[in-house]
């Protein structure tokens, strides 16, 4: 293989991407104080620290406030249609496995209209990072109840208060077969958000991160209980999981050592209602990836596709005129 030679030559090309190289010309149009900015920053930090070439990075989104993120990244982007971020990302990954695929989606986008795609994307376990920006409300359309809105939340569609218990994206994801990486973060602890994102990126498979995200406009003070009382944030640490910096440890003293391989405990943690678990709930690097299983011996070139199709058609080829003559 010439890999060594081209690798040597490629190393001559110095790339040193800085944060600004990942910032597009469009300034973020999120409200001041919006949690999405923390997520964008964490993503740009990850790209810089992993030195991901912008031309090898794709951000895919659906519809919603969160889904504006691809516009603000200087990388390839696909602002898709409502709920369909994941099928688009899967298509990109299977055709271009060399690209780093990131999906940003919101609670409405992913858990409501896109719920079916979400389940199957977990099952396919294709190598990508999915960030669920969960502000528990439809913000772009000015406050309607989303599947994760808490019971009793008064919105434009539920003026008398939401009537149903919210859906828990963590327990749902953990319950789907082939799940390989589930984590939860909060946008107001950006250091852990960055660390978790980095682990998600380095995990081979479908890395699902639910990020609790503040919406200062429509859900102001909604997360105050958790933000102001560090004891209600439970940090999940492990030698294979998050490792805390002293300044974080000093503030957040409620910590638990959790082995990311421990599924029963992960389910119990995901179901906590009064505390917010932050960290990697579950990680299993041995789950096969659909994109790798599907990768054939040969690339699917147009010529190969044509030959295979022709071979199939030839199996049932009929020549009526000749066969009739032969019968006679």
């Amino acid at each position, binding site marked *: 293989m010439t890999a*060594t*030679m*081209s690798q040597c030559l490629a190393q*001559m090309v110095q790339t040193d991407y800085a944060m600004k190289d990942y910032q597009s010309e469009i300034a973020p149009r999120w409200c001041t104080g919006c949690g999405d900015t*923390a997520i964008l*920053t964490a993503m740009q930090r990850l790209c810089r620290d992993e030195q991901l070439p912008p031309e090898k990075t794709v951000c895919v989104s659906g519809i919603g406030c969160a889904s504006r993120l691809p516009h603000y990244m200087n990388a390839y982007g696909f602002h898709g249609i409502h709920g369909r971020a994941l099928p688009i990302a899967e298509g990109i990954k299977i055709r271009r496995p060399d690209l780093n695929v990131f999906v940003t989606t919101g609670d409405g986008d992913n858990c409501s209209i896109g719920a079916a795609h979400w389940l199957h994307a977990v099952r396919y376990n294709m190598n990508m990072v999915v960030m669920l920006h969960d502000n528990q409300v439809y913000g772009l359309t000015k406050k309607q109840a989303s599947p994760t809105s808490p019971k009793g939340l008064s919105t434009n569609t539920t003026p008398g208060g939401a009537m149903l218990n919210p859906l828990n994206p963590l327990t749902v994801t953990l319950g789907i077969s082939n799940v390989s990486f589930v984590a939860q973060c909060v946008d107001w602890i*950006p250091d852990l958000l960055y660390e978790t994102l980095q682990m998600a990126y380095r995990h081979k498979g479908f890395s699902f991160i639910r990020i609790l995200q*503040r919406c200062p406009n429509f859900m102001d003070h909604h997360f105050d209980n958790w933000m102001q009382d560090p004891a209600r944030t439970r940090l999940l640490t492990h030698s294979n999981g998050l490792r805390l910096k002293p*300044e974080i440890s000093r503030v957040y003293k409620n910590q638990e050592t959790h082995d990311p391989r421990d599924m029963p405990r992960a389910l119990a943690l995901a179901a906590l209602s009064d505390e917010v678990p932050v960290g990697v709930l579950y990680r299993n690097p041995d789950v096969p990836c659909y994109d790798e299983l599907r990768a054939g011996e040969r690339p699917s*070139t147009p010529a190969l596709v044509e030959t295979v199709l022709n071979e199939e058609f030839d199996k049932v080829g009929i020549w009526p005129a000749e066969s009739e003559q032969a019968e006679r």
Partner: protein
Amino acid sequence: MKHGKIVANPAAHAPVTKTLRPALFARYADLANLRHDYPLVLVDFGEGRPLVRPLSRIIDGTLRLVAPKDLTGEAMRQQLLQLEADIRRRVLAGEEARLSDFWRDCTAEMIRAKGEGPFGGLDNNFEIARKRLPYDGLVIGCNGETPAKVLRHAWSAKQAAKARRFRRVVDSLILRLSDILKSDHMKSDEAHGAEALEAAMGATADGSIDFGALSAVLERARPEDRLPVDRVARIRDALQVLKGQPFYGPGRASDTTPCKRDPYNYTFDTCSAALDAYRDRLPDVLAFTKALTVAELEVENKYRPELHDQILARFDESDMSAEQINMLPSALVCLRDGETVSAETARSFEALACGLPITVLVQVDDLLGPTSPEPPVNSFGAGTARLAAMAMGLNNAFVCQTSSAHINRMIDGLERGMRYEGPALFSIYSGATPNVPDVEPYILSAAATEARAFPSFTYDPSAGSDWASRFSLAGNPEAEKDWPVHEVVYENAKGERQTETLAFTFADFAICDSRYTRFCHLSDACEDALDRVSAAEWLTCVPDTDPTRSPCVRVIDPENQLFSVVVDTKIAEAASRCIDAWRRLQELAGINNSHSRRALAEERLKREATSTQQAAAPAAKAVEADAKPVEKPAVPEPAAPVESATSDGAAWIETPRCTTCNECVQTNDKLFAYNENMQAYVADPDGGTYRQLVEAAESCQVSIIHPGLPRNPDEPDLPELIERAAAFN
């Protein structure tokens, strides 16, 4: 006479006039009825399949699947074994066909012979078994062509695997380069023209769309950033070379357009031809390697003309790495003792020594050579048996020596040799020699290995750095002994059953050769004659101690009468040369290694000299010292830097907790700024008022701004602000 039954000759004084065979051959007189490694199936290559498999093993495997172990399976077992015997008989008669063809013909014959029609019981049984046959492929017998056939088969399998890997890499590069050109083309005038747009609609366009107007609309949104012209040219050139490569055929549905010229042939009859071809093809190889490198850089967008142009312009054969050469097919050269001119032997060593991926088969048909030393004519001569051992001295070549009969046992070595990325020599004795009439090549080649005349061994330079990991004698019968030992059962003059243990020596092998028959003399028959010892014994000790005794071997005549023949010094000397060479090989494999024996003897002497007590005391101390853990110097853990409110009352931010929400920097972007991680810090405490600090602290969503104490005592409303700030300090 019953097959294999031997009768001791009562009195034999006759000279050697008839064909004599070693007594141990008696059991193997009728190969057609013996289940052995032949017929051998050259299995059609594919992932996870063996290279070759004896027919008997395939039948056994199928029987295990289809015939129950009890009596119900008995009929099917007998039918399949009968079928196997039929195929074996046909192959021994010189027929050659695929297993499925043999199966069809032989079963049809058996069904006819039994008087059954199609879909009868017998046909049904054969059909059940046929469906469970794991492999198909060419069925070959053991003859003069066997080594070349097996090696060509193994080589083709390796080339097919290489071609698959090659096409995967090249096709995917072609696809990705074409994608780059295609996406550039989509921005061109042509792609935006009315014609292209109409063509894109397909045949259904009915005139309802004005493609000219559509083109004008699209024109406004057309991206401007076209690829640089030189990059497009570079990609086109690389694509052309990759698509037109002449090393492998296009394969099934390859994206490479079929080569204008035929793909190169890589099988040669002489090493000179192989080396010449290598030189002739070098420009193509270089062009391809360059194109591949350019392509790999281009798809990663890492090609920089100012850096790489010069390097690639200077690129020549001396820059080629082994990996690059190994991506392309390796050459196969089949040489045959007696057919290939002698000068080619020297060339083969040259070819092996230069390190190119070249696989050389030296097929040996005549092992013993002429009876008197003479310059070889078109033959590797007496050196043939040592050719492989000599090649080990090259050190970089994979070497495998074996005989036709042992090919299946040595198949692992054969596969490793094929996988080896570098030169490889296979020296295989076919057993098909005109000087030994009436002995099947299978028996003779097995005998050559048994007699240590042509031992099986492999030398694999990639297996490790020492002899122990590189060299292996596995596959030889009783490799730890001088000669393998067998029992022979015969009937003596009184009709009693006798058992004798015989070693199979080089002398036994040599007497088969018609040229050496005159060096044997029938013994006086008295089995206990004092001056007769077995050749094995004689070779071990006698020549030095008792020159009057002479070696003899046990032989049989075509009627299975048992004799002893005394062998002449000619054979005895050749036998001692043979055993000497075998012992050297044993040493390489770690059997009776002279260095270690010498070291062992010296050590023993030393031990005897020193008293055990004296030796034990310091040893115990040494053990104790070893067991004691090395104490680590205590290094104090560096104290974690802890940020905290500064005592001097300066304002500060818990930067790692900042969520980049823009609140503070929108309040005052001189006072607050983002660091390289886009997280806020107090950039200039004098850049704003204390009021701004306090307000920023209050509006901070995550409450990480600590305003400290006011720096300007003249600021208005200070007492109130200090009170408000207290909550955040």
